[in-house]
């Protein structure tokens, strides 16, 4: 710990308080609802054979998908950020984009290719292909921000390239990797729509059955608390694996870019592997869209209202991304720089909403706002807040890992030169964590752009987004008319992914020449 002034950071505290209040909202809703249930009802709900089966389905899916996403995410990020792979900018975008494809399109794309596709393995494949970007993006940001001097030192001390990767590089990207794995696990706990089409039933099915056919929010809340318990286990596991940082930090001013590994003869096989990954994750759903546009008779030139929908989607998603990233900064800053039980608990708490189905979060916001903030009910502001609650964990992982990489000694040096803390933050910390902020923005933006459940419940009356219009046409079987909206969701998601890849590229070059 550094000496000098250590005032309790008021700004961080204020931001973290807002974040905590928002995150607690849906949890309080769940607890209030679940309390109305008696002990025997809870017993009847939870001690059913089908519940045990569904729970096991969820757990074995989460384990397999998380492991696969970790491998794909790290391998992809390493190839793009650390090798001489040609057209890296292009790959950087292509590898993130599967996140911007709505679940329903992914499921439909696969079932159109092979209608017999169903069950556990199909669910593992489809979910891995759509969730690996949650590992890829934070890890890529961490790799772009890597201190190459450490690797070189390791090599000069006689470690082979693989050992250097394992003992130095992997160690530096560990918080990003574990954070990404945590996101994949939590997202799987909450997922519902994608499994319907491959006929794989997870625990969320039990929750949705209570809501959709029993109209029983109390029973649904009791069941949702089981997901909360599962995510507490995942959060504890990630915390103990990450440890107290575990990141090797350079001394002041010693940071330097890492040298890219020449792929040489491996160039063609690596390109083939990445192309196969993108083809499966992105090509299949995009192929389904093209097929719909060509085949469907409802295909028309989309009206001018499609532009309004693009505008609303971009506006809400961007605002949510800024908001969630802004909340993630104080929460992770407290948890890393002022680590104690309270700040760590707060940071862990912020992940819980991600493990809950969007319907639960949205209904919690409905219940709260009709009672205490009716003027805000179904306003753009409320929808943005809902997105921020749902996707704050994505921002947290990206920001936290960047902050863990930034050396506090640099801030210390800034202060020793007589700068005020705000100036030090602006001139030293911010540039250091910029790639993490970019990754956070992109992750939240893309996820918000494709969100449907909360959007349908909370959007301002009379306002359409790409997701609501896409949904409206698919429920009419007008796939031809729906396809352009899905295609635009992917296109809109490509914008932050592209900007981010450019900035990470610039940063890496700046470090190489430094």
């Amino acid at each position, binding site marked *: 710990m550094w000496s000098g002034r250590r005032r309790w950071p008021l700004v961080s505290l204020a931001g973290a308080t807002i974040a905590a209040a928002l995150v607690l909202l849906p949890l309080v809703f769940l607890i209030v609802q679940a309390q109305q249930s008696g002990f025997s009802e809870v017993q009847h709900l939870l001690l059913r054979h089908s519940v045990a089966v569904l729970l096991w389905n969820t757990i074995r899916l989460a384990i397999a998908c998380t492991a696969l996403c970790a491998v794909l995410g790290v391998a992809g990020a390493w190839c793009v950020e650390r090798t001489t792979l040609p057209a890296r900018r292009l790959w950087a975008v292509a590898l993130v984009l599967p996140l911007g494809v709505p679940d329903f399109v992914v499921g439909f794309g696969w079932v159109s290719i092979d209608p017999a596709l169903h069950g556990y393995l199909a669910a593992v494949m489809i979910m891995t292909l759509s969730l690996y970007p949650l590992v890829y993006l934070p890890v890529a940001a961490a790799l772009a921000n890597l201190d190459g001097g450490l690797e070189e030192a390791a090599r000069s001390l006689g470690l082979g390239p693989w050992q250097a990767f394992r003992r130095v590089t992997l160690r530096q990207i560990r918080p990003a990797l574990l954070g990404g794995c945590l996101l994949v696990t939590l997202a799987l706990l909450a997922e519902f729509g994608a499994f319907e089409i491959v006929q794989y039933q997870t625990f969320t099915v039990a929750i949705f059955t209570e809501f959709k056919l029993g109209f029983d929010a109390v029973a649904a809340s009791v069941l949702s608390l089981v997901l909360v318990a599962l995510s507490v286990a995942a959060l504890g596991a990630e915390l103990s694996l990450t440890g107290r940082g575990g990141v090797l930090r350079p001394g002041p001013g010693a940071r330097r870019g890492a040298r890219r590994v020449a792929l040489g003869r491996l160039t063609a096989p690596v390109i083939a592997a990445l192309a196969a990954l993108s083809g499966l994750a992105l090509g299949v759903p995009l192929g389904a869209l093209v097929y719909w546009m060509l085949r469907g008779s409802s295909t028309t030139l989309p009206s001018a209202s499609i532009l309004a929908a693009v505008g609303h989607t971009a506006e809400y998603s961007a*605002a949510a991304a800024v908001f969630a990233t802004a909340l993630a900064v104080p929460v992770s800053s407290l948890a890393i720089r002022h680590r104690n039980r309270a700040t760590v608990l707060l940071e862990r708490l912020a992940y819980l909403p991600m493990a809950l189905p969007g319907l639960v979060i949205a209904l919690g916001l409905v219940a709260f706002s009709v009672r205490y903030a009716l003027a805000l009910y179904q306003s753009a502001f409320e929808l943005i807040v809902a997105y921020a609650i749902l996707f704050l964990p994505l921002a947290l992982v990206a920001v936290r890992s960047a902050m863990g990489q930034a050396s506090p000694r640099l801030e210390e040096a800034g202060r020793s030169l007589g700068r005020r803390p705000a100036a030090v933050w602006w001139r030293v910390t911010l540039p250091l964590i910029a790639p993490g902020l970019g990754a956070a923005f992109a992750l939240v933006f893309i996820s918000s752009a494709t969100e449907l459940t909360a959007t349908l419940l909370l959007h*301002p009356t009379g306002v359409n987004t790409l997701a609501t219009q896409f949904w409206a046409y698919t429920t009419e079987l007008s796939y031809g008319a729906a396809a352009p909206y899905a295609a635009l969701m992917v296109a809109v998601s490509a914008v932050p992914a592209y900007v981010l890849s450019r900035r990470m590229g610039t940063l890496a070059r700046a470090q190489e020449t430094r």
Partner: protein
Amino acid sequence: MARHKSLIFTAILAFAALALSACGSSAHSADTITLYNGQHEQTTAALVAAFEHQTGIRVDVRSGDESELANQILQEGANSPADVFYTENTPVLEALRERGMLAPVSPSTLAAIPSRYNSSEGDWVGVSARVSVLVYNTSQLSPAQLPSSILELAQPKWKGKLAIAPSETDFQPLITAIIKLDGRAAAERWLRGLQANGKVYPDNETIVAQVNNGESAIGPINHYYWFRLRAELGGAAMHSALHYYAAGDPGDLVDVSGAAVLRSSSKQAAAQAFLAFLVSRSGQETIAHSHSYEYPLRPGVAPAPGLRPFAQLKPVPLTPAELGDGHEALALEQKLGLL
């Protein structure tokens, strides 16, 4: 580094502007009602346009999944912005009625529709209907091979040929009908047979598409999904046809779409006017001419061309009220692990 900052600064400014603009939300005037819409959006859009033109009352439409909307209304309680709830199926309306959320529908509106299609307590009105039928692939099956009863679908000969959607809201009424007509044990046997024979799909839309492309040979659906698929793909791409069950078979059900006024609504008169319009001749003709392919329920209004006339259908004499909120069917499906 300056570019990082300017980007972040711009983002924060944009956010602040948006948050401010969002706070000045619109004030609703007295002659505007809010409709929570679980019906297909295009049908509703046509009805709303005609109603606004006729009455000058504006309708704000919020579309969504009908059971999610019902849950939303239950959470909103007395503060619900919804004045009218228009749904594709009646179990959601029954669920709200049981919880005392609906206001009585005005008697003249109820009188426009045969009473068996309305809430027995008069809390919601039937608007249009679909009939439960079988869709079959015409290159895999000939009309002579088709079953006359839905109960036959549980026979081993349909193994691997059948497509079902047990989580679809149209599926529970079939189970309820079998429970009512043949008893619970028969319904359970039938479901077990379907479970052994059928491939499970998420909804009727997928069943009709998969039967049409030959992945499955046969499946129970509501008639209008087939007509809509034909409208989307064109007649030349149809490799399937509809088959009606024998009169009085438990499969031969009519599913009703209905509407209700929320008890919490402060605009009862305008909301009742919208319901009255839905069952009026012009409202019912709008439904018949929209591409929803539903049967208008008002006597004397003809359905879309190509549909078997409603009078020729001889569905089982079970009213939507008797089919209830589908609780028993749900419990049975859960027991067998179909949900």
